[in-house]
């Protein structure tokens, strides 16, 4: 990996901006189709509701983006979400008073999984796909063995309301606000602070970063910890939203978060893309899903459509944005 790194893309920005524009253009198209396809489709209340109910994907995808940016991949996010849900439910035990402690433990569990991922990747030098898959599988085995298939405890009633409530009389869902906050935090850290810029260099060109004295390993581990944390936040929100912990609810989020990042212009080879691009990717996926559901499209057709759209979008992106660059 390191020997090839000098081939890494330069830090030039224009390409990034074009793919960003493209991501948002796609999101706008999906938005228009969504709006036109149903009566009263552009009502802001409805759109904010859709964004609120899909906040978990948005939050998780930000962590995935950070990992992708430093040439990694996190296949454990879905399992980490379920772990956070199980921990949350068990420690909360249905009491509002336990909420802060339960939240802290759930997030800590997520960060711990991220730390293990990061350490295995940099210390054992295992490929990220493998390392995170193995850790995710072990985490899954762990919570199944511990819970024997039945999540313990319960979600406190006060915390459940968190999912449906929001600012300005409930129009801006809390989940959406958390999503925005995580996004803002990631963007500010990445582009407005020195450690953040170092992080970008690590992703774009680890060899250069190493020669410049930037701690490549430290930054890589940090990315995985961040992803573990966002996965835990996503899992916690999903649990509040559903009202009870689930051992399977997170499963689909692993590949969905990668897909969102990729549609948003994040390269799987690292160094290219941004949380802002991923935001657009999440919008595309969420709008598409909503369109298919409201049109009463049968589930198999929905599945096939989503697969085809992913491929077509990649092809179009390549044609218009990344001409001449190979990205395998």
């Amino acid at each position, binding site marked *: 990996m390191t020997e090839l790194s000098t081939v890494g893309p330069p830090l030039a920005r224009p390409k990034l901006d074009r793919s960003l524009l493209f991501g948002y253009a796609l999101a706008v198209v999906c938005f228009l189709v969504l709006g036109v396809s149903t009566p009263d489709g552009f009502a802001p209340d409805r759109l904010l*509701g859709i964004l609120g109910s899909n906040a978990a994907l948005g939050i998780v995808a930000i962590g995935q983006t950070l990992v992708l940016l430093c040439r990694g991949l996190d296949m454990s996010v879905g399992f980490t979400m379920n772990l956070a849900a199980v921990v949350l439910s068990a420690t909360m035990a249905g009491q509002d008073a336990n909420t802060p402690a339960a939240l802290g433990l759930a997030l800590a569990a997520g960060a711990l999984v991220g730390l293990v991922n990061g350490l295995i990747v940099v210390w054992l030098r295992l490929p990220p796909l493998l390392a995170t898959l193995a850790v995710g599988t072990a985490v899954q085995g762990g919570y199944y063995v511990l819970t024997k298939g039945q999540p313990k405890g319960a979600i406190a009633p006060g915390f459940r309301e968190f999912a449906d409530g929001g600012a300005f009389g409930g129009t801006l869902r809390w989940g959406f606000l958390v999503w925005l906050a995580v996004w803002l935090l990631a963007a500010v850290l990445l582009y407005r602070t020195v450690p953040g810029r170092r992080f970008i260099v690590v992703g774009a060109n680890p060899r250069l970063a190493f020669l410049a004295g930037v701690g490549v390993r430290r930054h890589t581990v940090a990315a995985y910890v961040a992803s573990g944390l966002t996965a835990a936040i996503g899992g916690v929100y999903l649990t509040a939203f559903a009202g009870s912990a689930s051992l399977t609810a997170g499963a689909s989020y692993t590949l969905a978060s990668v897909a969102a990042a990729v549609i948003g212009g994040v390269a799987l080879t690292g160094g290219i893309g941004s949380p802002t691009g991923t935001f657009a990717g999440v919008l595309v996926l969420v709008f598409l899903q909503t369109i298919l559901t409201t049109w009463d499209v049968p589930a198999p057709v929905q599945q096939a459509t989503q697969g085809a759209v992913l491929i077509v979008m990649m092809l179009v992106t390549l044609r218009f944005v990344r001409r001449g660059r190979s990205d395998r």
Partner: protein
Amino acid sequence: MVGGRRRRLVLELLALAAVLLLAACTSQSEETGVAGPPAGETKSTFVIGYDTYWLGNSWSVQLAAEFRASVSRHGAQIERVVYTQSDNDAQKQISNVDSMISRKVDAIIMTPVSPQAAVPIIKKANAARIPVILLGADANTDTYTSLVTVDDTAIGRVGAQWLVDRLGGKGRIYVLDGVAGNPVNEQRRAGAREVFARYPGIRVVASAAANWDQAEAKRAVTSMLAAHPQVDGVWSQGGAMTLGAIEAFRADGHPLVPMTGEGNNGLLKVWQQLGPESGFDAIGVSKPTWLADDALKVTLRVLTGQPYQKNDRKEPPAVTADNLPSLVQPDLPDDFWVDTRLDPAQIRSMFNG
């Protein structure tokens, strides 16, 4: 370099330890194991193979708990139970049941993950002269020894009929399905569609496969409400999804409508809280977990040569507004299923493990 070598040594030791551990596990189980019965002798205690088809949702967990509880009640007749777990995977189930045949158990109790894929393994057990008792799901053969179940088509039909009657045969409804391609899903769906087809006044305006998941159902119904705000009823084939639908209606400020569901405590608690004046009404039609108890009883009858019923297809028990107060368990978690024979201590241990 030195670091690399040390690391390698540690890893090799770990690998060795893991292999030894596993080997120890197998040999241990063999010590207590099945030294097959002397031929020709009639036995008074039996080795029973039980394949847990899944432990991925609360119903499957309670079914397994119910079976274990039943085993403890019939301890005198049971020498040992060989447990396997199939993770809802038909091929894994075939391997698991095959391993029971290798271990020469006296009877096999299984819940076919796929009705067709279970056929070859049932026939293999037939050839090995091991009785097969199907619990809670059918197989596309009649060479099994006994079937103890509640038909999923009936579950779909009973709920749909109730909804149609409740709406006076006319109205716009949402449909919430489970996992597309899952046999239970397709059978319940078929049962419901058969009823809806007979009433031209009933219009299905939106449907989604919400994977029997509360969060997914809530998300799906949220977008359905936005697209088709005029709705008179919800046919949901899962209790958790019904809860998700109720939450979506309330979050949207939409008045509640009659919905179908299952006999899971979460739905019953909310239903009880809402009361009749809310406009909400429901029916909880489900497959009772006590089927596991009945399956073990039938198995023991088969093994001891007593008469038994080959096809025991029971009518689905239904929770309605009338019997709701007697069935709801306000102190137990949402994931509890009310059609059970577990005693309070066993229920508590399931949730507090």
